[in-house]
C-alpha cells in the first residue's frame, strides 16, 4: 500500500468525520426537541415522540439510510448522496439522543423543578436554567457513548455507495488485492478515532459513579 492509497483512505476518513459531525450536531438540535416533547405532560406531543424513538431504535440504521436515500427523491427533493445520508443520520441521532436526554431529564429529582416553581420561575426557565444543566451532566457518558456508535454507524453509508472510510477501503482493497492489510488499516483508523472517545466516556462514568457513592 503506497502513499497514494493511504491518501485516498485519509480522504475517506475526512468524509467519515464530516458525516459524524453533521449527524451529531443535527442530532443534538433535534434531539433536544425530541427530549423536551417526550417529557411533555400532553399526550399529543408525547406519543408521536415515543413512536419516533421506537421506530429508529427498532429498525436497522442501514434500512433508515436506504429509505432516506430512495425516499427523499420521491418527495421531490433532489439531494446529493451525502445530504440524503446526513438527513438519515440526523434523524437517527435525534431519536437516540432524545431518548438518552429524556432519561436524564427524568433522573433529575422532581424536588428541583418544584423548588424552582416555588421560587416563581416561569416554565421555560425551570426547564432551561434548573433541570437541563443537571440533566446535561447526568447524560454526558451516554451521549459520548452514542457519539462512538454514530461514528461507527457512518460506515454504513458505504453500502449505499457513498465514499467514506470503509468504502474507500473496499475500493483500495479491490485495486491492490490486499484486503487484510487494507481493512486492518481501516480498522486501526476507526479505533484511533473511537478509542479516545470511549475512554473519555468511561472516565466520565466512573467519576459520576464515584460522585454518587459519596
Amino acid at each position, binding site marked *: 500500500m503506497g502513499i497514494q492509497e493511504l491518501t485516498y483512505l485519509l480522504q475517506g476518513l475526512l468524509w467519515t468525520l464530516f458525516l459524524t459531525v453533521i449527524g451529531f450536531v443535527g442530532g443534538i438540535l433535534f434531539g433536544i426537541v425530541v427530549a423536551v416533547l417526550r417529557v411533555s405532560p400532553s399526550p399529543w406531543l408525547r406519543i408521536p415522540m415515543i413512536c419516533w424513538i*421506537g*421506530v429508529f431504535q*427498532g*429498525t*436497522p*440504521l*442501514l*434500512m*433508515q439510510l*436506504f*429509505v432516506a436515500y*430512495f*425516499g427523499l427523491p*420521491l418527495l421531490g427533493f433532489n439531494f446529493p448522496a451525502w445530504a440524503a445520508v446526513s438527513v438519515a443520520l440526523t434523524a437517527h441521532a435525534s431519536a437516540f439522543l432524545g431518548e438518552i436526554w429524556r432519561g436524564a431529564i427524568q433522573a433529575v429529582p422532581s424536588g428541583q423543578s418544584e423548588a424552582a416553581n416555588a421560587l416563581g420561575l416561569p416554565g421555560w426557565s425551570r426547564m432551561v436554567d434548573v433541570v437541563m444543566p443537571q440533566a446535561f451532566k447526568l447524560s454526558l457518558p451516554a451521549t459520548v457513548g452514542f457519539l*462512538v456508535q454514530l461514528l*461507527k*454507524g457512518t*460506515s*454504513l453509508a*458505504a*453500502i449505499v455507495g457513498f465514499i467514506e472510510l*470503509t468504502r474507500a*477501503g*473496499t475500493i483500495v*482493497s479491490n485495486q491492490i488485492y490486499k*484486503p*487484510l492489510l487494507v*481493512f*486492518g488499516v*481501516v*480498522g486501526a483508523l*476507526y*479505533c484511533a478515532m*473511537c*478509542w479516545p472517545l*470511549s475512554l473519555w466516556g468511561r472516565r466520565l462514568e466512573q467519576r459520576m459513579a464515584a460522585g454518587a457513592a459519596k
Partner: protein
Amino acid sequence: MTLDFSVVADAWKSLLFGALGTLFLAFSGMVIAMVVGVTGVVILRMQMRIPSLLVTLFVEIIRNTPFLVQIFFLFFALPLAGVRLNPTVTAILALGLNGGAYAIEIIRGGVESIPKGQTEAGLALGLHKHEVFRLIVLIPALRAIYPSLASQFILLTLTTAICTSISAYELTSVGQRIEAETFRSFEVYFTLTSIYLVISLVTMWLLAALGRWAFSYPQR
C-alpha cells in the same frame, strides 16, 4: 412518480424466508456471543496477565470499529487461514464475535455486582469452587444483567442487516434481490424497514415475558 407495492407483495414468500434467515442469524450469533462472553469473563477472572490483556484488547478492538469493517476482515481473513465457509456461516461467526465483546462487558459488570462475601460464604459452606461460581455468581449475575442482554440481542438482530454486504442469507439481501429485479427501491426498503420493526417489537415483548418467567425471584 407513483408507488407500487404490488411487486413487493408478490414476493411475500421470499420475504418471509428472508425474515426467518434474519432470526436464524441473530439467534445463532447470540448463542456464540454468550459462549464468547462467558469464556471471556472466566479468563478475566483467572487474573493472569497475558490472557486478560488479550481479552481486553479483543473487547476494545471490537467495540471501537464498525461491524461492517469486522465482517469484511473476517470474510477475507478466513480463506487466507485455510477456512472456507459460506457467507451465512461467516456472518454468524462475525455476529458472534461482535456480540461476544459486548457480552463480556455486560457479564463482567454482572459478576462484579456480586459481593465477594457471598462467594466466601458459599466456600465456607463447603460448596465446590465450580458450584460457587455457577449457583452463587453466575445465576444471580445473569438475573441482574438479563435486561441488558435482551437489548443486546435486539441490537444484534438489527445488526444482521449489515450481513447483506457479504451476501449472507437474510432479509436485507433478499430485499436487495427483489430490488434488482423490480427497480422498486423505495417500496422494497420501506417494506423491509416495517418487517424489521415488527421483528424487534415482537422480540422485545417475548424477551420481556421470558425474563419475567425465567428470572422470577426466588428461584423456581
